[in-house]
């Protein structure tokens, strides 16, 4: 092989190796950087009745999708020092909260807690609120702000606790007015807690 060709071959190989190694190193660095806590969940909210007659109980569901590789403490975490997942509505005048319903978490072990399982949510979790629009609730469209608070971790590190705002849209009508059940795929299931 001519020296010039050999040189070109070795040089090209060196460049390819350099690029490949740089890409691997970049991917490892990138993978090591956790996102913001608020970025690892997406939330969708649903209301069980449309419209909501005054005096009638209805439910709201917040479906929380948690990014793959992450988990959050359940509402009843394994230890008192762990921060539970909570849902807190800021109720407008005329609305009442009967109950917040949280599903049971799953006991899982993690590399940082190999002997003690932690009670967590991962994947998708549906949190519910039982609410009533009372006589004093304003008629028409109303937004109910809700705060989802959670603390998430992956297999190695934890993200600080964070509060994520969620909103419920309800249409309030007079007592006794017709209303329709909505989202049976969510609300027909009996909530577990």
């Amino acid at each position: 092989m001519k020296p010039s060709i050999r040189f070109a071959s070795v040089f090209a190989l060196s460049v390819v190796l350099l690029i490949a190694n740089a890409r691997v190193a970049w991917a490892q660095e990138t993978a090591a950087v956790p996102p913001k806590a608020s970025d690892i969940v997406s939330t969708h909210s649903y209301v069980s009745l449309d419209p909501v007659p005054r005096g009638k109980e209805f439910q709201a569901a917040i479906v929380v999708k948690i990014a793959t590789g992450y988990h959050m403490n359940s509402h009843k975490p394994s230890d008192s020092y762990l921060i539970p997942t909570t849902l807190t509505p800021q109720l407008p005048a005329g609305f009442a909260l009967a109950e917040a319903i949280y599903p049971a978490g799953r006991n899982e072990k993690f590399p940082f807690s190999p002997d003690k399982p932690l009670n967590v949510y991962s994947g998708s979790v549906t949190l519910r609120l039982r609410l009533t629009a009372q006589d004093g609730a304003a008629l028409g469209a109303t937004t109910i702000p809700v705060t989802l608070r959670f603390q998430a971790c992956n297999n190695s590190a934890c993200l600080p606790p964070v509060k994520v705002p969620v909103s419920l849209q309800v249409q309030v009508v007079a007592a006794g007015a017709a209303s329709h059940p909505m989202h049976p795929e969510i609300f027909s299931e009996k909530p577990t807690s």
Partner: protein
Amino acid sequence: MNRVVRTLSAAVLFSVVMLGVSGCKGGAPSGGATGKPAALADAPDVTFKDLQGKDVTLSSFKGKVVLVNFWGTWCEPCRGEIPILIAMQQKYGPQGFTLLGAATNDEEKNVDSFIHTTQFNVGGQEMLMNYPIVMGSDDISTKFGGLLGMPTSYLITRDGKIAKRYIGSLNENQIVKDVEGQL
């Protein structure tokens, strides 16, 4: 010919050096991302508050190798590595090393109670945390470049430079090796 050989040698040498450099960077131990934060070569000039409310400047530790460990009582992986940190303080403290635990996203009363009551099994012996604990804050985290997860630790040289950052649970062998390398 000589020129070709020289050029070829230079190219190969360059590749080897570059591969070596990036290979070190990519060789993070599992369970803890490491790396030199390029923008943070000098440790930031920060002032923590201790649990009595007194100022504790990071610069007051100059001359010592310091491992600043951002942790929280609410953080399970942070708790998990505390026995390693206690053992390191015990072993390397007399050689000019200190841990500095910066409790973050936490309340002073929780931290105070925690450090005085929670025992850790260190080599079969029940021990309390044996290193200085201060309160972190968002401002301090920002000066360190922002915390990307907890625990996060920074290894600081005797002359106040950030030698390494560790995101997530520490790998015991790696941190011991790194600290010994600074002593």
